[in-house]
């Protein structure tokens, strides 16, 4: 299967190890992984902060890059949710006069035609069903839960809001973790509560964000786990930053990194 990796801008820039783990894992499971070089960002930050035009342009770029693949895999619940939930919305609400995608330098002033708008909506409709979060791809598309991983540590799992309520990942990630040899999965109290990241929310409402994260960190520490795992590095970065500031000694790891570890690799 020809699988395109949508690494996401945050992973590409700050967490390359996650992307490398996804590549290792998918190859081990027999996939033909490609990395389309033209990819950048799904536009989540722009749309969610209130810049729908920029977001629409980035969405246009995204569907241009990924429309031709059999499957697109993203190791990020919130970016996958962005594509799946917001792209159809963006396509629906595309103003008749501004085209997507127009180049940035021309901005919204580019004269556009209804035909171009249609093509954006069409490519969104084509691309969106092929975009999967990693755990969804493994469980639903490849049909595996035992990926042959070995990770002898005590791990707790934070489901993250967009994975939970946007993608409805359900127990897919924990089913995968339970099959990892040596891994002890301990439940996280208050797991379904938001960690307070929310993209620009952490910057715009720092006090509330910090209070939410403090409670999350308290819950993580109470499990006695060595590793906090999630399927979204943005949330992990936020919680991990607080875990480190408080010197809890708990490490953060993306689901892909745990699933990629094997006895041989140690």
């Amino acid at each position, binding site marked *: 299967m020809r699988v395109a990796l949508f690494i996401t801008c945050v992973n590409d820039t700050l967490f390359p190890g996650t992307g490398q783990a996804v590549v290792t894992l998918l190859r081990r499971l027999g996939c033909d992984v490609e990395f389309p070089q033209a990819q*950048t960002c799904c536009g989540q930050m722009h749309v969610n902060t209130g810049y729908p035009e920029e977001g629409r342009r980035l969405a246009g770029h995204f569907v241009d890059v990924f429309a031709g693949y059999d499957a697109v895999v993203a190791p990020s619940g919130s970016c996958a949710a962005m594509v799946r939930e917001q792209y159809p919305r963006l396509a629906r609400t595309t103003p008749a006069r501004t085209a997507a995608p127009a180049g940035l330098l021309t901005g919204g002033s580019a004269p556009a035609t209804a035909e171009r708008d249609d093509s954006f909506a069409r490519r969104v409709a084509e691309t969106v069903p092929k975009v999967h979060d990693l755990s969804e791809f493994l469980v639903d598309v490849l049909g595996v839960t035992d990926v042959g991983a070995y990770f002898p540590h005590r791990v707790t799992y934070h489901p993250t809001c967009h994975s939970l309520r946007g993608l409805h990942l359900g127990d897919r990630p924990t089913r995968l973790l339970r099959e990892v040899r040596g891994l002890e999965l301990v439940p996280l109290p208050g797991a379904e509560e938001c960690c307070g990241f929310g993209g620009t929310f952490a910057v715009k*409402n720092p006090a509330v964000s910090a209070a939410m994260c403090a409670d999350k960190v308290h819950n993580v520490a109470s499990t006695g786990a060595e590793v906090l795992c999630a399927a979204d590095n943005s949330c992990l970065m936020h919680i991990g930053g607080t875990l480190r500031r408080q010197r809890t000694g708990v490490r953060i790891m993306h689901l892909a990194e745990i699933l990629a570890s094997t006895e041989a690799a140690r």
Partner: protein
Amino acid sequence: MSGAGTFLGMPAFPHNAAAAVQDSQLRFNLRKATHTIRGKRAAVVGELPDWAELRRAGKEIKDHTLRHLDRYLLQLEEAVTAAGGHVHWASDAKEANRIVADLVKATGETSVVKVKSMATQEIGLNEALQEEGITAYETDLAELIVQLGDDWPSHILVPAIHRNRAEIREIFQEKMAEWGRAAPEELTDEPRALAEAARLHLRERFLSTKVAVSGANFMIAETGTLVVLESEGNGRMCLTLPETLISVVGVEKLLPTWRDLEVFLQLLPRSSTGERMNPYTSTWTGATEGQEFHLVLLDNGRTDVLADEVGRQALRCIRCSACLNVCPVYERAGGHAYGSVYPGPIGAILTPQLRGTASAIDASLPYASSLCGACFEACPVAIDIPEVLVHLRGKVRHARAERLGMRAAGWIFDRPSRLARVQRLGGRLRRFVPGRLPGPLSAWTDTREIPDIPAESFRDWWNRTDGGAR
């Protein structure tokens, strides 16, 4: 919401919330109360196998009604009038207050008893009546606590949720005498004792007041019937004892038929108090014998909201407050931080639509959420609150610095080559990134470590190793 005077001119949400987060008593009270209701709600919702269908039915009935609002409102007016009631139309808060004040004055009375109502709070009715020399007495227990304490409500259903028993005892003892029957000398903070003090205080009030003001949870177009759901019975006292009843109701509270009520009598109590059925459901149609009935239909921005394709779903709201009780932001910031009688997630989308986004507080409300989606999941009429928040964010004025930053980010993301260049620059400078960041980003480093910046981006690793093959 021009009437809600003192709430306006409030500083923006982040500022209010930062102060509230420091108040550990408030956080404790809120956490305890919201988690209790949250648990009860989840349990009684879970026991209905057809909850999803009920929710869909609730959404569809409301959407249908809103689509034909003009028609159903006229039908309602006709039915109410035929049943001996009087219908008044108020386009804004000022007009509604004027109508109510004139109606009360015409009776020659100088006091009214009130059934808990969000609409009258929205228009600041109590304050407006005060200016005309009319005293409005709240009779809902929690509203009474707020009124006696000279406080603001902080929750739709439990306006005094931010207060604990000890605080309530103090308020009763200090203030009840000023407003009527004093609290007993030896008042304890036992819930029973507090309820009894309120009961005795209110009983005098019910028996001596000739005019009542209420809102309504629902209005039924085909029969002209108004419906109020409550738990204490004080509402029923107000609705039946006085000689004149004035109901101020938002135009969106309409349901086409009596049958539609069935859906909402299941959705509302389970979502709001976590009960299978609410203790008191009162319905009245027009004027009963010896009683005058007036219905004031309130617009106050609602028809403008209706014009917004995405935002209009906020008008489906049945004010159950389920979204408040599950909201992690509300739980920490408290209701007052939202600067409106509608706090929490619904307040964050409703208030800026009703009032516009010109003031600092209103412009900050669409950002008073981490978009975690818990509110949408809990909402019995499936209002996609995160969708409306994002939609409203697209409409508020952004600060110049933010605009420039977002444009710069967009410019970088526009070309993969630009992104790669920025990543390489970051990799080279990574040792120089300070632990504490300046400007608005300092908010991040106050409580968190920023992650280590890798020497090489994924993109560069892929190209250097041919995707790990070399």
